[in-house]
Protein backbone atom coordinates (compact mmCIF):
# COMPACT_ATOMS: atom_id res chain seq x y z
CA UNK A 1 0.00 0.00 0.00
CA UNK A 2 1.41 3.36 -1.03
CA UNK A 3 1.22 5.45 2.12
CA UNK A 4 2.63 8.62 0.54
CA UNK A 5 -0.79 9.36 -0.95
CA UNK A 6 -2.07 9.92 2.60
CA UNK A 7 0.75 12.22 3.78
CA UNK A 8 -1.03 15.48 2.97
CA UNK A 9 -4.19 14.30 4.68
CA UNK A 10 -2.12 13.26 7.71
CA UNK A 11 -0.45 16.67 7.84
CA UNK A 12 -3.68 18.64 7.49
CA UNK A 13 -5.55 16.62 10.09
CA UNK A 14 -2.63 16.55 12.52
CA UNK A 15 -2.37 20.33 12.31
CA UNK A 16 -6.06 20.67 13.10
CA UNK A 17 -5.62 18.51 16.19
CA UNK A 18 -2.45 20.35 17.25
CA UNK A 19 -4.25 23.65 16.95
CA UNK A 20 -7.07 22.22 19.07
CA UNK A 21 -4.46 21.08 21.63
CA UNK A 22 -3.10 24.60 21.96
CA UNK A 23 -6.61 26.00 22.37
CA UNK A 24 -7.47 23.38 24.98
CA UNK A 25 -4.24 24.04 26.88
CA UNK A 26 -4.98 27.77 26.99
CA UNK A 27 -8.46 26.94 28.25
CA UNK A 28 -7.04 24.60 30.90
CA UNK A 29 -4.46 27.18 31.94
CA UNK A 30 -7.23 29.75 32.42
CA UNK A 31 -9.40 27.31 34.33
CA UNK A 32 -7.36 24.46 35.84
CA UNK A 33 -10.42 23.07 37.63
CA UNK A 34 -12.18 22.37 34.31
CA UNK A 35 -12.42 18.70 33.41
CA UNK A 36 -13.25 18.99 29.69
CA UNK A 37 -9.84 20.13 28.35
CA UNK A 38 -7.98 16.98 29.42
CA UNK A 39 -10.50 14.73 27.65
CA UNK A 40 -10.21 16.75 24.44
CA UNK A 41 -6.41 16.77 24.67
CA UNK A 42 -6.36 13.02 25.18
CA UNK A 43 -8.55 12.38 22.12
CA UNK A 44 -6.53 14.75 19.90
CA UNK A 45 -3.18 13.21 20.85
CA UNK A 46 -4.63 9.70 20.59
CA UNK A 47 -5.82 10.42 17.05
CA UNK A 48 -2.41 11.79 16.03
CA UNK A 49 -0.78 8.69 17.51
CA UNK A 50 -2.97 6.34 15.48
CA UNK A 51 -2.44 8.26 12.26
CA UNK A 52 1.33 8.57 12.76
CA UNK A 53 1.70 4.87 13.54
CA UNK A 54 -0.25 4.05 10.39
CA UNK A 55 2.05 6.28 8.35
CA UNK A 56 5.09 4.59 9.91
CA UNK A 57 6.25 7.78 11.66
CA UNK A 58 7.66 6.06 14.74
CA UNK A 59 9.02 9.11 16.56
CA UNK A 60 5.81 11.07 16.17
CA UNK A 61 3.79 8.07 17.35
CA UNK A 62 6.13 7.56 20.32
CA UNK A 63 5.89 11.18 21.49
CA UNK A 64 2.10 11.16 21.05
CA UNK A 65 1.91 7.89 22.97
CA UNK A 66 3.88 9.29 25.92
CA UNK A 67 1.73 12.42 25.95
CA UNK A 68 -1.38 10.27 25.82
CA UNK A 69 -0.20 8.25 28.83
CA UNK A 70 0.49 11.41 30.83
CA UNK A 71 -2.90 12.86 29.88
CA UNK A 72 -4.59 9.60 30.83
CA UNK A 73 -2.96 9.76 34.28
CA UNK A 74 -4.05 13.37 34.68
CA UNK A 75 -7.57 12.52 33.53
CA UNK A 76 -7.87 9.65 35.96
CA UNK A 77 -6.25 11.61 38.79
CA UNK A 78 -8.96 14.24 38.40
CA UNK A 79 -6.96 17.02 40.02
CA UNK A 80 -6.16 20.45 38.66
CA UNK A 81 -2.85 20.53 36.77
CA UNK A 82 0.09 22.51 38.12
CA UNK A 83 1.60 25.25 36.01
CA UNK A 84 4.59 22.94 35.37
CA UNK A 85 2.26 20.34 33.85
CA UNK A 86 0.59 22.89 31.58
CA UNK A 87 3.93 24.32 30.44
CA UNK A 88 5.27 20.83 29.74
CA UNK A 89 2.18 20.01 27.67
CA UNK A 90 2.63 23.24 25.67
CA UNK A 91 6.25 22.26 25.00
CA UNK A 92 5.28 18.72 24.09
CA UNK A 93 2.63 20.02 21.67
CA UNK A 94 5.24 22.26 20.03
CA UNK A 95 7.62 19.29 19.75
CA UNK A 96 4.85 17.14 18.29
CA UNK A 97 4.07 19.80 15.70
CA UNK A 98 7.72 20.05 14.67
CA UNK A 99 8.12 16.28 14.44
CA UNK A 100 4.93 15.96 12.35
CA UNK A 101 6.26 18.54 9.88
CA UNK A 102 9.68 16.85 9.72
CA UNK A 103 8.14 13.41 9.29
CA UNK A 104 6.00 14.48 6.34
CA UNK A 105 9.08 16.11 4.79
CA UNK A 106 10.91 12.77 5.10
CA UNK A 107 13.22 14.17 7.81
CA UNK A 108 11.80 12.53 10.91
CA UNK A 109 15.29 11.54 12.09
CA UNK A 110 16.07 15.21 12.64
CA UNK A 111 13.39 15.43 15.34
CA UNK A 112 15.34 15.42 18.60
CA UNK A 113 12.83 14.40 21.22
CA UNK A 114 15.21 13.18 23.93
CA UNK A 115 14.72 16.12 26.30
CA UNK A 116 10.95 16.37 25.99
CA UNK A 117 10.47 12.61 26.38
CA UNK A 118 12.64 12.60 29.50
CA UNK A 119 10.63 15.51 30.94
CA UNK A 120 7.33 13.76 30.21
CA UNK A 121 8.57 10.58 31.88
CA UNK A 122 9.85 12.49 34.91
CA UNK A 123 6.54 14.29 35.36
CA UNK A 124 4.59 11.11 34.69
CA UNK A 125 6.43 9.41 37.54
CA UNK A 126 5.54 12.27 39.85
CA UNK A 127 1.90 12.11 38.84
CA UNK A 128 1.65 8.39 39.68
CA UNK A 129 -0.03 7.29 41.81
CA UNK A 130 -2.51 10.13 41.78
CA UNK A 131 -3.39 11.23 45.30
CA UNK A 132 -7.06 11.34 46.26
CA UNK A 133 -8.78 14.64 45.49
CA UNK A 134 -8.23 17.26 48.17
CA UNK A 135 -11.31 17.72 50.33
CA UNK A 136 -10.69 21.47 50.66
CA UNK A 137 -11.91 24.30 48.44
CA UNK A 138 -11.11 24.45 44.74
CA UNK A 139 -7.64 25.68 43.80
CA UNK A 140 -7.14 29.42 43.70
CA UNK A 141 -7.79 31.45 40.56
CA UNK A 142 -5.30 31.25 37.75
CA UNK A 143 -2.71 33.98 37.52
CA UNK A 144 -4.36 36.98 35.90
CA UNK A 145 -1.25 37.79 33.89
CA UNK A 146 -1.36 35.01 31.32
CA UNK A 147 0.55 37.00 28.78
CA UNK A 148 3.53 37.06 31.13
CA UNK A 149 3.37 33.30 31.39
CA UNK A 150 3.28 32.85 27.65
CA UNK A 151 6.33 35.10 27.31
CA UNK A 152 8.08 33.20 30.07
CA UNK A 153 7.26 29.99 28.29
CA UNK A 154 8.78 31.24 25.06
CA UNK A 155 11.89 32.49 26.83
CA UNK A 156 12.40 29.25 28.68
CA UNK A 157 12.39 27.22 25.47
CA UNK A 158 16.12 26.75 25.73
CA UNK A 159 16.07 25.71 29.37
Amino acid at each position, binding site marked *: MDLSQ*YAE*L*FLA*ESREHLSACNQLLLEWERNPAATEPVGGLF*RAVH*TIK*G*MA*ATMGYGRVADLA*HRMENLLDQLRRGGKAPTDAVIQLLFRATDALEKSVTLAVAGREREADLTAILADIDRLGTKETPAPPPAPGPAPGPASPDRRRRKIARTNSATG
Partner: protein
Amino acid sequence: MSHTVLVCDDAIFMRTMITDILAQAGFEVVGEAETGTQAVEKYRQLKPDLVTMDIVMPDMGGIDAVREIVKQDPDAKILMCSAMGQQALVVEAIQAGAKDFVVKPFQPSRVLEAVQRVLG
Protein backbone atom coordinates in the same frame (compact mmCIF):
# COMPACT_ATOMS: atom_id res chain seq x y z
CA MET B 1 -23.69 -8.23 -4.71
CA SER B 2 -20.94 -6.61 -2.68
CA HIS B 3 -21.21 -6.21 1.06
CA THR B 4 -22.07 -2.76 2.40
CA VAL B 5 -19.97 -1.13 5.11
CA LEU B 6 -20.34 1.80 7.52
CA VAL B 7 -16.94 3.24 8.53
CA CYS B 8 -16.81 5.00 11.93
CA ASP B 9 -13.72 6.96 12.99
CA ASP B 10 -13.24 10.56 14.11
CA ALA B 11 -10.16 10.97 11.86
CA ILE B 12 -10.86 11.59 8.18
CA PHE B 13 -7.38 10.14 7.55
CA MET B 14 -8.40 6.79 9.04
CA ARG B 15 -11.82 6.79 7.34
CA THR B 16 -10.19 7.46 3.98
CA MET B 17 -7.64 4.69 4.43
CA ILE B 18 -10.17 2.10 5.63
CA THR B 19 -12.53 3.06 2.80
CA ASP B 20 -9.72 2.64 0.25
CA ILE B 21 -8.71 -0.76 1.65
CA LEU B 22 -12.31 -2.01 1.59
CA ALA B 23 -13.24 -0.47 -1.77
CA GLN B 24 -10.19 -2.02 -3.43
CA ALA B 25 -11.31 -5.40 -2.12
CA GLY B 26 -14.78 -4.94 -3.63
CA PHE B 27 -16.75 -3.75 -0.61
CA GLU B 28 -19.18 -0.86 -0.89
CA VAL B 29 -18.69 1.81 1.77
CA VAL B 30 -22.19 3.25 2.06
CA GLY B 31 -21.59 5.69 4.90
CA GLU B 32 -19.11 7.26 7.31
CA ALA B 33 -19.52 8.47 10.88
CA GLU B 34 -17.17 10.58 12.99
CA THR B 35 -18.86 10.21 16.37
CA GLY B 36 -20.59 7.37 18.17
CA THR B 37 -23.92 9.17 17.93
CA GLN B 38 -23.58 9.46 14.16
CA ALA B 39 -22.63 5.78 13.97
CA VAL B 40 -25.85 4.76 15.73
CA GLU B 41 -27.98 7.04 13.52
CA LYS B 42 -26.32 5.92 10.30
CA TYR B 43 -26.61 2.28 11.23
CA ARG B 44 -30.34 2.75 11.67
CA GLN B 45 -30.65 4.51 8.29
CA LEU B 46 -28.29 2.38 6.21
CA LYS B 47 -28.47 -1.11 7.76
CA PRO B 48 -24.99 -2.00 6.49
CA ASP B 49 -23.68 -5.57 6.39
CA LEU B 50 -20.64 -4.52 8.42
CA VAL B 51 -19.50 -1.66 10.66
CA THR B 52 -15.88 -0.71 11.38
CA MET B 53 -15.78 1.12 14.71
CA ASP B 54 -13.06 3.26 16.29
CA ILE B 55 -12.97 3.20 20.09
CA VAL B 56 -11.99 6.74 21.05
CA MET B 57 -14.37 9.26 19.48
CA PRO B 58 -15.88 12.50 20.71
CA ASP B 59 -19.51 12.77 21.79
CA MET B 60 -20.22 9.03 22.18
CA GLY B 61 -17.31 6.57 22.18
CA GLY B 62 -17.18 3.43 20.05
CA ILE B 63 -18.05 1.01 22.86
CA ASP B 64 -21.25 2.83 23.78
CA ALA B 65 -22.09 3.00 20.07
CA VAL B 66 -21.68 -0.80 19.85
CA ARG B 67 -24.11 -1.22 22.76
CA GLU B 68 -26.69 1.04 21.10
CA ILE B 69 -26.37 -0.62 17.70
CA VAL B 70 -26.62 -4.13 19.15
CA LYS B 71 -29.71 -3.03 21.06
CA GLN B 72 -31.29 -2.07 17.70
CA ASP B 73 -29.97 -5.12 15.87
CA PRO B 74 -28.58 -8.05 17.87
CA ASP B 75 -27.14 -9.51 14.63
CA ALA B 76 -25.09 -6.39 13.80
CA LYS B 77 -21.60 -7.25 12.58
CA ILE B 78 -19.17 -4.80 14.11
CA LEU B 79 -15.38 -4.84 13.76
CA MET B 80 -13.50 -2.75 16.34
CA CYS B 81 -10.49 -0.69 15.23
CA SER B 82 -8.28 -0.17 18.25
CA ALA B 83 -4.91 1.40 18.94
CA MET B 84 -2.13 -0.55 20.59
CA GLY B 85 -2.44 -0.74 24.36
CA GLN B 86 -6.25 -0.75 24.38
CA GLN B 87 -6.72 -4.44 25.19
CA ALA B 88 -9.05 -3.78 28.10
CA LEU B 89 -11.27 -1.61 25.91
CA VAL B 90 -11.30 -4.23 23.17
CA VAL B 91 -12.49 -6.84 25.67
CA GLU B 92 -15.22 -4.43 26.80
CA ALA B 93 -16.24 -3.85 23.18
CA ILE B 94 -16.46 -7.60 22.49
CA GLN B 95 -18.55 -8.02 25.62
CA ALA B 96 -20.77 -5.20 24.35
CA GLY B 97 -21.38 -7.16 21.15
CA ALA B 98 -18.54 -6.42 18.70
CA LYS B 99 -17.51 -9.50 16.72
CA ASP B 100 -13.76 -8.96 16.26
CA PHE B 101 -11.03 -6.33 16.22
CA VAL B 102 -8.01 -5.06 14.31
CA VAL B 103 -5.18 -3.04 15.82
CA LYS B 104 -3.77 0.17 14.32
CA PRO B 105 -1.51 0.65 12.46
CA PHE B 106 -3.55 -1.17 9.85
CA GLN B 107 -2.18 -3.61 7.36
CA PRO B 108 -4.68 -4.07 4.54
CA SER B 109 -4.37 -7.87 4.67
CA ARG B 110 -5.15 -7.93 8.41
CA VAL B 111 -8.16 -5.67 7.96
CA LEU B 112 -9.54 -7.84 5.16
CA GLU B 113 -8.96 -11.06 7.10
CA ALA B 114 -10.84 -9.64 10.09
CA VAL B 115 -13.66 -8.42 7.85
CA GLN B 116 -14.01 -11.90 6.35
CA ARG B 117 -14.09 -13.45 9.82
CA VAL B 118 -16.82 -11.08 10.93
CA LEU B 119 -18.93 -11.61 7.83
CA GLY B 120 -18.46 -15.34 8.33
